């Protein structure tokens, strides 16, 4: 049974509930709803117990509740070994702990669990608001810990103030640890959060897919350049290549999709690089997309770990991008490359594949062009001219039927990138020219303050590549034929009134807000660059910047000096506070005398008057009587009369006696006394 002081006062109880609430709140959207209800019910029950209206649940009831929660968890989660069930389990364990929250020990367990639950929030997202919220959680949980000590500490201002003070004092050390503590890299493969839907460019392209993206202004990529920056018309960030068409949807197809037989070179050395140097060097920071596609300019190579290169000149990540991911890329534009090898037959077949039937009008139209003896490039320019003459770029095209290419090319003639790219590749393939649809992002907004290119979801784009013998894959953007602004100035200009039409708040219409958003993005970018993506490489760079080179001597100085400063501070502090009231010289001298007497076998009793002590010494050791008398005399005169002479004499006496003691061994004098 817990002793009385271990029982929980009301304030402490409320603090625990507050800490749990703070830790749980941001998780609620992810957790099954019943957990929230279970928590609220447990809190209600515990408060009823506090009011004396109810008893804590008995053992049978507790077992039942545990069985129910386990069943509930099994019902809610199929996979056990993943982050979400773990968070749910932690949340449930402190929920259940509430039902037996009795002693200080229970409170500690509950609050330590709360720390952990609060931390799992960061696994979901590492943005600035989340970081701030996490800090607040830590503050509240620490305050709740402090509040467990007594009712004075449990006062809200006191507890929070104390917690804030502790955190503030801990911050310098935390920063130091953050910078210098080695990052080991994952010790084992961890389950990732897979709940949220995929965003960004998807695995396949069906009519309407890009409309969804055009409605989102969320950042997708942030690209900073080391050296030259590609002009706007060259900013084609390739992510996916669609080679397979089933009459309606474009897919990557077998042999191209890295997850389905496509070949990936996981280290850049495996594939021969062009002889000349790369034209662009840049770093891409990609937002979580929950798919493995990375985005880069044509013919990329990357040395970042976990990044591979496909045969069709794209970058992929070994595991899906579950959280922001940064990678370094070098790119060689196609025109800088040497003459490529001819397309092998499998590639050729794949890039000429068309459904057996359907879209007859297009096939016939292309057939007429071919019969006129036009080459690949002429057919392409005919098609582009057609787009340019007759077509309208719009974000809200009419719905298309089963022969979507026919209807688009000859009836509606209204659409946007996916329609143009799809119909173009269809037509080129029908003309016997190997062609493929490429999806990714095009363009981006230049952020001057931080010197990076901000690419948003609405920059998602689809274009085409055709194979020209002797020249290799060439990029063709049919959309540019209709709406050059789309390529040059981005979607906002091209779509005009249609841009972000359906968004709830047309924030992009307000200049100030647009600027503020850009500012906010800059802060985010900074945050990501300095904090979130701080890895062992950046750590080494930072240390190198701070220390010059990483010689053991410098490292020792760097780590040792703060420790030394702290230790010195503590030492000085304890000495200054520990001997706060310094005893007067007289008393210290007398203490020396007492110590010597103790060594000689006569200890001064607490509170014994000096005169009595001298008397006792005279009684037990007559040979010391004279000395003791003179010391006591001098002490009394110095201490109570303020006699300077006496002080000097006391000093002299003690010095003289020391010499005497050196001549007479202590144990001998002790023997004499007994």
């Amino acid at each position, binding site marked *: 049974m817990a002793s009385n002081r271990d029982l929980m006062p009301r304030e402490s109880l409320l603090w625990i509930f507050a800490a749990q609430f703070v830790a749980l709140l941001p998780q609620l959207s992810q957790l099954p709803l019943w957990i929230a209800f279970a928590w609220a019910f447990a809190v209600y029950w515990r408060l009823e117990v506090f009011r004396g209206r109810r008893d804590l649940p008995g053992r049978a009831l507790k077992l039942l509740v545990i069985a129910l929660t386990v069943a509930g968890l099994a019902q809610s989660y199929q996979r056990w070994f993943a982050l979400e069930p773990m968070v749910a389990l932690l949340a449930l364990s402190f929920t259940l702990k509430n039902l037996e929250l009795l002693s200080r020990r229970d409170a500690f367990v509950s609050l330590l669990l709360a720390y952990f639950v609060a931390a799992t929030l960061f696994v979901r997202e*590492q943005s600035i608001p989340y970081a701030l919220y996490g800090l607040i959680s830590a503050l509240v949980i620490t305050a709740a810990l402090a509040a467990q000590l007594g009712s004075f500490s449990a006062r809200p201002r006191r507890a929070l103030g104390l917690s804030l003070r*502790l955190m503030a004092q*801990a911050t310098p050390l935390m920063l130091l640890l953050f910078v210098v503590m080695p990052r080991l890299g994952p010790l084992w493969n961890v389950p990732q959060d897979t709940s949220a839907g995929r965003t960004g460019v998807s695995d396949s392209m069906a009519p309407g897919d890009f409309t969804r993206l055009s409605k989102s202004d969320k950042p997708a990529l942030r690209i900073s350049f080391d050296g030259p920056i590609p002009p706007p018309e060259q900013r084609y960030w390739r992510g996916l290549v669609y080679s397979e068409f089933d009459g309606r949807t474009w897919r990557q197809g077998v042999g191209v999709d890295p997850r389905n037989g496509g070949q990936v070179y996981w280290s850049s050395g495996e594939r021969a690089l062009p002889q000349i140097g790369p034209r662009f060097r840049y770093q891409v920071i990609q937002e979580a997309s929950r798919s493995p596609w990375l985005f880069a300019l044509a013919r990329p190579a990357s040395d970042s770990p976990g990044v591979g290169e496909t045969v069709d000149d794209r970058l992929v990540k070994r595991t899906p991008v579950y959280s922001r991911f940064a990678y370094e890329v070098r790119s060689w534009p196609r025109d800088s490359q040497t003459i490529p090898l001819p397309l092998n037959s499998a590639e050729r077949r794949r890039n000429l594949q068309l459904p057996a039937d359907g879209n007859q009008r297009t096939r016939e139209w292309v057939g007429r062009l071919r019969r006129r003896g036009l080459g690949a490039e002429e057919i392409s320019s005919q098609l582009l001219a057609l787009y340019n003459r007759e077509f309208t770029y719009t974000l809200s095209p009419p719905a298309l039927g089963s022969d979507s290419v026919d209807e688009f090319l000859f009836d509606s003639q209204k659409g946007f990138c996916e329609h143009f790219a799809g119909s173009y590749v269809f037509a080129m393939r029908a003309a016997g020219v190997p062609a493929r649809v490429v999806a990714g992002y095009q363009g981006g907004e230049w952020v001057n303050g931080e010197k990076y290119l901000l690419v948003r979801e609405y920059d998602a784009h689809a274009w085409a590549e055709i194979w020209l013998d002797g020249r290799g894959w060439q990029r063709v953007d049919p959309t540019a034929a209709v709406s050059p602004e789309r390529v040059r100035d981005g979607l906002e200009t091209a779509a005009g009134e249609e841009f972000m039409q359906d968004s709830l708040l047309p924030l992009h219409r307000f200049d100030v807000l647009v600027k503020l958003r850009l500012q906010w993005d800059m802060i985010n970018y900074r945050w990501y660059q300095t904090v979130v993506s701080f890895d062992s490489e950046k750590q080494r760079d930072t240390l190198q910047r701070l220390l010059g080179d990483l010689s053991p001597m410098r490292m020792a100085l760097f780590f040792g000096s703060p420790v030394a400063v702290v230790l010195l501070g503590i030492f000085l502090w304890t000495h200054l506070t520990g001997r706060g009231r310094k005893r007067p010289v007289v008393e210290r001298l007398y203490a020396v005398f007492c110590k010597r007497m103790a060594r000689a076998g006569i200890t001064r009793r607490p509170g014994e008057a000096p005169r009595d002590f001298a008397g006792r010494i005279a009684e037990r050791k007559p040979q010391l009587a004279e000395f003791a008398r003179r010391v006591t005399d001098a002490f009394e005169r110095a201490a109570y009369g303020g006699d300077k002479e006496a002080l000097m004499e006391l000093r002299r006496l003690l010095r003289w006696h020391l010499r005497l003691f050196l001549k007479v061994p202590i144990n001998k004098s002790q023997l004499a006394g007994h």
Partner: protein
Amino acid sequence: MSVNRDFPWQASNTGSTASKSSRNFFRGLSERWLSRRAPRSRDITLNHSRLFILPTRAGLGYLLVTALLWLLATNYENNLVFALTFLLISVFVILPVHTFANLSGLRLQLIGTEDTFAGDFAEAQINLSRADKRQREWIQICWPPEEGAYVDLCEESLADFRIALPALQRGRIQAPRLRVESRFPLGLFRCWSRIDLDVEFLVYPRPLAAGPLPLGEAMVEGTSGQVRRGGDDYASLKPYQPGDSLRHLAWKQYAAGRDLYSKEYESRTDTRLWLDWELLDGRDVEARLSNLCYWVLQAEKQNIAYGLRIPGTTLPPSLGAEHQHRVLAALALFPRWGG
């Protein structure tokens, strides 16, 4: 102040239990070390040489959580979890300073002790004060395993409190070292000091009912007691009244030319209350002392003057708090059988 220092022979009798515990070598060793490091005094200021500090079990649990968080951060390569982990570790690192500061500089003074009866609690009055401006919270002062007192020094700079020690045996009890402990601010560290405030209690024997007061059972020469008229002792003269015994006429005064007086006599059988060792023949020493103690309390309650006669000590009958204390002290300090 009720501590009496006039009984030096009792010192060995009731000395601190630890110094005698030869069976627990290490304990003795640590006590000796402590007594050198933190010597006995009635006025002690806590400083770094007297304070010890270690993490509590909750502190170890906290470390375990930081270790788990570090694993989480490492495996998910999550810098914010790293940051939180390091923040928690840093808090843990600076905590001992706060815990230490909560006790350091505190001054404890023994104000006094109260005598008690064996089987009861002996209380010491202690004053806790601080010279600086730092607030102190949640300081526990106790004789383990007793609960002791919890004291805060927040707005006020000094506090008086009492702490109790169960008194099991009569005699002069040297209290063991006091433990002054604090787990402020988060309960993750325990800072403590074991100080010897030189607390001594005089513990009277446990009162054991021994029947009614032994009134008139002891007959002793003395100057007080119940007076009966017509005894053997001359008391005074009074004017002669017819009927007075001729034997009692004061002839001497009459011969000197004064009136006829009659001498008045009283019997002086000593009926004063003596609480006598011999009255309780046949019981063992402790039982006798306990019974005597009981009688003392009864006599004091009934307002009957009483005296004490035990081997080695005789205290003449009297009444009052002073007298009671003397009598009870004599009982408390009666040498132990065989000791």
